[in-house]
């Protein structure tokens, strides 16, 4: 996504010292090897301090009250919005809607498109997604198409773990109203090509929704350059707290869409019979928002910006390249997804012979190595590649080559533990 050569190198040892959780020992005396970053990242001291400082000194409700704390809390909350807007190069902070997480952001979009109106879905309309979506970008579209009588269709996948765009013009048609796709797959690691999808979607007048949950934490994200209409991502995968996510949308579009949740904060004027709504983004932020979490996300964005997203991305590419090379030396191991770093993120799924991922993960855990096992909320991908589940190692800015070595040694231990009959290429 960005030229790697210009990126200043990341001082990983220095970065690691910012993350208290990485100093933990588990199961007695095992140093933690945390390779579950696609599920959630660890948090740097800077984010923990921001949360602590907010609650200790500035805690108040936002956008109301004229006392000192209320004004400080509001400034911190809106300041976090400004930081996030700069981080993704939004045209203005009003285009940043705070949500609970990516899931809520995507449900917001699918729900408001289910209302009557110029953008509203109905019989004969189509929503197009892909077979590599997280369940959070499948189920909301199933719900809204079932409710409105619209049709859901999707791009299938190639054997190499890429989107099959060979029939793009017959999948995205004149009837397509929404195209929603993941920028970086949480299970395959694939980085999808937004240009082709955006071009075709806009050609037929469809809205483009992008799930950037696995992109925003790992690479420079420029929502204007991306060309999409709506982009969702979440704070906790990018060094921020849980409970805070982001929906970015073009201002004109956000203004056009009806509100999602009703309540305080999102109104302009209320009578018993009807209401008018606040300007964006507050129209989409009913109730007391996750204030401390937004402030924490702002601190996370500051942290990542100071390191440089180019540097973060370059580091992850290096670690991922090393991991792909070393993992493929493990006997009977099969990578599920692209086997090189070309258009690929830092989540690496694999199968170890016939061993079930749950058993692999359990033995790795005993060695202090944290990986994710299961279908990673992307069960259709497991079905596509004929595996019940996968083991997934996912890397981030603080992971090292030594941790990749520990993973590989751990996998060899797993194979010895269960014996060749269970773990080898049978």
């Amino acid at each position, binding site marked *: 996504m960005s030229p790697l050569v210009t990126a200043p190198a990341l001082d990983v040892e220095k970065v690691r010292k910012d993350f208290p959780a990485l100093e933990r020992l588990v*199961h007695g005396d095992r140093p933690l090897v945390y390779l579950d970053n696609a599920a959630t990242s660890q948090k740097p001291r800077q984010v923990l301090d921001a949360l602590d400082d907010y609650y200790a000194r500035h805690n108040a409700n936002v956008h109301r009250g004229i006392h000192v704390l209320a004004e400080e809390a509001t400034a911190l909350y809106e300041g976090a919005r400004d930081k996030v807007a700069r981080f993704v190069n939004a045209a203005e902070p009003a285009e940043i809607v705070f949500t609970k997480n990516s899931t809520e952001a995507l449900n917001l979009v699918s729900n408001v498109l289910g209302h009557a109106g110029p953008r509203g879905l109905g019989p004969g309309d189509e929503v197009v997604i892909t077979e590599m979506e997280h369940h959070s970008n499948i189920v909301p579209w199933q719900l809204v198409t079932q409710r409105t009588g619209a049709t859901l269709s999707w791009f299938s996948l190639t054997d190499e773990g890429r989107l099959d765009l060979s029939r793009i013009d017959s999948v995205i048609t004149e009837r397509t109203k929404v195209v929603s796709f993941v920028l970086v797959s949480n299970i395959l690691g694939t980085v999808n090509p937004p240009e082709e999808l955006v071009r075709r979607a806009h050609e037929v007048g469809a809205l483009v929704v992008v799930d950037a949950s696995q992109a925003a934490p790992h690479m420079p994200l420029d929502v204007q350059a991306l060309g999409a209409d709506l982009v969702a991502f979440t704070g906790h995968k990018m060094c921020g707290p849980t409970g805070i996510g982001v929906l970015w949308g073009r201002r004109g579009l956000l203004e056009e869409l009806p509100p999602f949740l009703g309540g305080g904060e999102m109104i302009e004027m209320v009578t018993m019979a009807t209401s008018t709504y606040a300007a964006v983004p507050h129209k989409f932020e009913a109730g007391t928002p996750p204030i401390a979490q937004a402030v924490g996300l702002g601190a996370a964005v500051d942290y990542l910006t100071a390191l440089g997203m180019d540097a973060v991305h370059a580091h992850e590419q290096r670690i991922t390249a090393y991991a792909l090379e070393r993992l493929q030396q493990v006997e009977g191991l099969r990578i599920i997804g692209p086997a090189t770093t070309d258009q690929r993120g830092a989540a690496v799924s694999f199968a170890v012979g016939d061993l*079930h*991922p*749950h*058993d692999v993960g*359990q*033995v790795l855990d*005993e060695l202090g190595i944290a990986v994710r*096992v*299961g*279908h990673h909320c992307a*069960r259709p991908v*497991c079905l596509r590649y004929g595996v*019940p*589940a996968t083991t997934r190692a996912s890397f981030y800015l603080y992971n090292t080559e030594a941790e990749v070595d520990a993973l590989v040694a751990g996998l060899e231990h797993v194979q010895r*533990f*269960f*014996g060749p*009959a*269970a773990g080898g290429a049978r």
Partner: protein
Amino acid sequence: MNLESMYQEIILDHYRNPHHRGLRDPFDAEVHHVNPTCGDEVTLRVRLADDGSTVEDVSYESLGCSISMASVSVMTDLVVGKPLARATEAYDAFLALMRAKGDTGALVEADEELLEDAVAFEGVSKYPARIKCALLGWMAWKDATAQAVAADAGRDAMTEESA
């Protein structure tokens, strides 16, 4: 905590060489249970004796981790050919074992006799994420058996009506 407490040799034996595997006819009820967190699946059939008093056969196909595969194998050993009441006692004892959270005192002698190979799963109860794996086959059996009993009762009622 040591891993051998979970992966006892007896469990690995059942995993490598499962008992009663395959789907067989005739059967009174078939169920499909999944463990959505990790993708374990089991399709399981129950055949009760005509008077409903005995578990005549339990057959299954399963896909999953060693714990879930071994557990369903051990379970079939404990219920196939047994009086339904006895099999249900084994189910209750296994459920209690899984809820013991590794408290070794929880396993009384009577249960050990009832559970046979299944006592090897005591170590699994210390791992909350794996308890569901160990219970998958048992839950499927319980569900299929309840359906078989209900089907039996339905047939009896019809027989009485027609009589």
